[in-house]
């Protein structure tokens, strides 16, 4: 079996989940964690990864202070052994790095894996989602030449770690790295008047609210509950609410105790922004909306009808 590597991004809290994904894809393997960076940040990341993985390869260097795919791709292509398999998170770094890396390694590419059906042989069968999560697919690949796979966040339950492990300094491989894409700066999303990441109770609105004019219905409910309004991406795209209120992989990651999803269908990009397993209540007109699969309590209803009643009921229940 090919050697298995896991790229652990700076935020090492993803390490256990990525290890779980790697073990699901390559049962019985002992994956090596890959971390890249510069200075103390690299040391910290390497140490954190070592808590979970048996072995950590650390790539350091000034050029890697802001590791981007254009630096990592040639670096890994050079440093990894022939036939290696790599597991990445299906995040914006993974999407940037994975496809090209698979070409450079001559490996098969399995993006956005949500499950594994058959592994361990020359053929690997995984589960994916297409059409924005509306259709599930079984996808098989020839794993004989190695595999680069990206794992969807939340799809693999972290198990026991393989650490504590040792850190190997592989900075030598990173010498003389020159990228044709150079980091300039990070522009943070405009800070809004609220920080939804720190809220315990969120009333989140999606496309199902229909119209900007109907937002006050949700706002009144939030006010009655003592909650804060958040939303899904279409609401921000329509400029009905600030970007700062967007929950999802392209917005904020929130950790509330109670999450009330109003007219949100429940795409994985949205659900990917909800962490900490809140009590999830979904209201949607469409009984087939995927959100009902993950919600604790659901109501199939027209928001315009339900919201005023619910606001009243909440006021009474106080």
């Amino acid at each position, binding site marked *: 079996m090919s050697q298995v590597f896991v790229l652990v991004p700076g935020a090492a809290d993803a390490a256990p989940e990525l290890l779980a994904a790697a073990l699901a894809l390559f049962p019985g393997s002992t994956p090596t964690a890959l971390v890249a960076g510069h200075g103390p940040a690299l040391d910290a990341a390497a140490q954190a990864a070592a808590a979970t993985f048996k072995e950590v390869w650390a790539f350091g260097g000034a050029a890697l202070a802001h590791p981007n795919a254009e630096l990592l791709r040639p670096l890994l292509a050079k440093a990894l052994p022939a036939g290696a398999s790599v597991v990445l998170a299906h995040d914006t770094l993974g999407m940037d790095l994975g496809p090209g890396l698979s070409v450079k390694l001559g490996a098969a590419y399995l993006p956005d894996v949500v499950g594994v059906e058959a592994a361990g042989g020359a053929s690997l069968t995984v589960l994916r989602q297409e059409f924005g999560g509306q259709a599930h697919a079984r996808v098989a690949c020839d794993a004989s030449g190695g595999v680069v796979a990206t794992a969807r966040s939340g799809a693999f339950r972290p198990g026991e770690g393989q650490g504590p492990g040792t850190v190997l300094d592989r900075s030598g491989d990173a010498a003389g790295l020159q990228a044709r894409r150079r980091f300039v700066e990070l522009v943070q999303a405009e800070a809004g008047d609220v920080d939804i990441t720190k809220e315990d109770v969120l009333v989140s609105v999606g496309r199902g609210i229909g119209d900007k004019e109907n937002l006050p219905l949700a706002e009144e409910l939030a006010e009655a509950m003592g909650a804060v309004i958040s939303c899904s991406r279409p609401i921000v795209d329509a400029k009905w609410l600030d970007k700062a209120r967007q929950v999802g992989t392209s917005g904020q990651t929130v950790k509330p105790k109670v999450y009330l999803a109003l007219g949100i269908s429940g795409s994985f990009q949205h659900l990917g922004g909800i962490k900490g397993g809140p009590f999830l209540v979904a209201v949607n007109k469409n009984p087939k909306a995927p959100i009902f699969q993950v919600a604790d309590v659901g109501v199939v209803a027209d928001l*315009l009808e339900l919201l005023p009643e619910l606001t009243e009921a909440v006021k009474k229940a106080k």
Partner: protein
Amino acid sequence: MTLPFSPATATLGSLPLWPLFALIPLAGLACFAWIIRRRLEPLLRAAPDPRRDRVGVRLLLVLKIWLAQWRHPRYLLAGVLHIVLFLGFLVLGARSLQMVFLGIWPGFALPGLGAGYAAVKDVAATLTLAAVLVLAVRRAAFMPERYRVPPGLGKDHTPEALAILGLIATLLLSEGLFEGSLLAAGTERGIPLTLPWAFAGLLGGTAAGTLAGIHTAAYAVHDVAFFAFLCILPLGKHFHVITSLFNVFFMRVETGNVKPVRHGVPDAQLDEVKSFGVKTLEDFTWKHILDFYSCADCGRCSDRCPANAVGRPLSPRFISIKGRDHAFERFPLLGGATAPAPLIGGIYSEAEIWSCTTCGACEEECPLGIEYIDKIVDLRRGLVDDGLVPQGVQKPLSALEKRGNPWGKLERKRGEWAAQAGVPVKSAEKGETAPLLYFADSMTSYDDRSQRIAQATARILHRAGEDFAILGKEERDSGHDVRRFGEEMLFQSLRDQNVEAIGASGAGAIVVSDPHALNALRHDYPGVPEVRHISELIAEGIGRGALKPSPAKDQRTYTLHDPCYLGRHNGVYDAPRQAMDGIPGLKRVEMEGNCRDRSFCCGGGGLMLFMEHEEKERMGARRVEMARAAGADVIVTACPYCLTNIEDAIKVAGLEGKMEAIDLCELVDAHLDN
């Protein structure tokens, strides 16, 4: 009659003045001719617009709208004052012509206008001056809100208005003095309380020589003022004094229709038209530029415009004013025309052009017959041609192209509502035929709530003994709002599919419950059988006893909201009222001032549902307020879009349980249970 003195024989020192009095008109007319020639320039370069048809109808419009000032009293005070001013102008126009000749021809009189006319014009002049004074005070001190110029749209128009009123007053006073000084030289004093009478009284006993001087001076002032007035008119909003007659003659004679992309180009040859719609001034038709010239800036259009009322960036008045100023700028009086400039991004904004619901309130109100809908549609055609379609509308348009409805729902589900109608509904998709075709259109076919209108319609038709069928999956969206959103080619594709399906159905008559479908089939579809709205069939059915509604089921108060495309655009005002009144004991009130042809748009239908507007409140919310103010508990509509908009507004206003919206068909159907 011999005159004691005349400007034609007057001298200054030893110099005779008549050559000057000959020169002033000649110079004035030359100047006026030059200005008019320049003003005609954009009209000559504009798009064609054949308007010489139906001369009889047009002459009647001139008599009614222009001469009788039919629409003026809709704003009572301003209207009455304008009528006085207008009639004064008509009477005094002849006098002014006579005055021009009096400077070179002593005692000149227009044939047929003798002593009787002299008396009438003195009274008219006096009344006109009174009107001018009232107008000036009103303008300066009690200006109605609708005359204000919102920030960003230029300077206030009050100085212009006051200057013109001053000039008119000068004309009236100088003529009065001219006449009065003559009277003062004799023994007559004229008609009491008129201007000449007042001046003659003031000048009584003055020496004849002085009177002659005053007489000549008054003449000179009048002569100069008159030609100054003539040349100033085409420079601003008072151009309407000259253009209104033509504008009314050439005005829209039909409602509900939309102009073709280019007059004279048949649909089949549209592919050869390089650019669609209006992008620069020259793309407008000559009539539309004449509209710009004719705008009197009275603000009635914008006062009645629902988009303007809810704070959308549209004021029809400024569509005209900005268009006029742009035309003046592009075609200056001196020097050549400047190059065509894009109107969108220049004088108009995209948001402004997409704000219009084409409700027609502005056109209904305009005392001069200015058109807006065709201009808006033409500007949208230009935007669509350049790909500048709001993102929210692109998906529905694409779905209409692919599946014939704006939600992209399956074609074969179009007729599914019929299964729950409770009565048999024939469908062309099953090969069934009937003499009457019920064309449901997309909203009524697919929208959960609106399907109840379709089902009620089917039950009413069944009850009335009509043998009817639907097209089912053979039906496409009528394309009514697709066309009014400027997507002409998509509209034509939908229309052609429908015309074929309607033809194949073999029906001899069509009934609709959606006024948008009514309007499309009536005005946009050539050669389809007669189309009527279900309210007309209900009123008739009740009239001939085929439908006998049971007594009203509750004591609530009902009011009818006139859908724009039923009322204003198609003149169906009475049928829905008769239908409601056919329910014994039903209590009905009117939203006085906001009903019938002054109905207030609910927010618009069709693709408007998918638009996001910059606005302070919803039109529907306004409408619900109006109904509430009228004391109504139930708003009865006769259009699926009105129903949806008003129901939403009731919910958002938190008036659920207190107020209700219901379609006329549902109301009647609920009372056919006996």
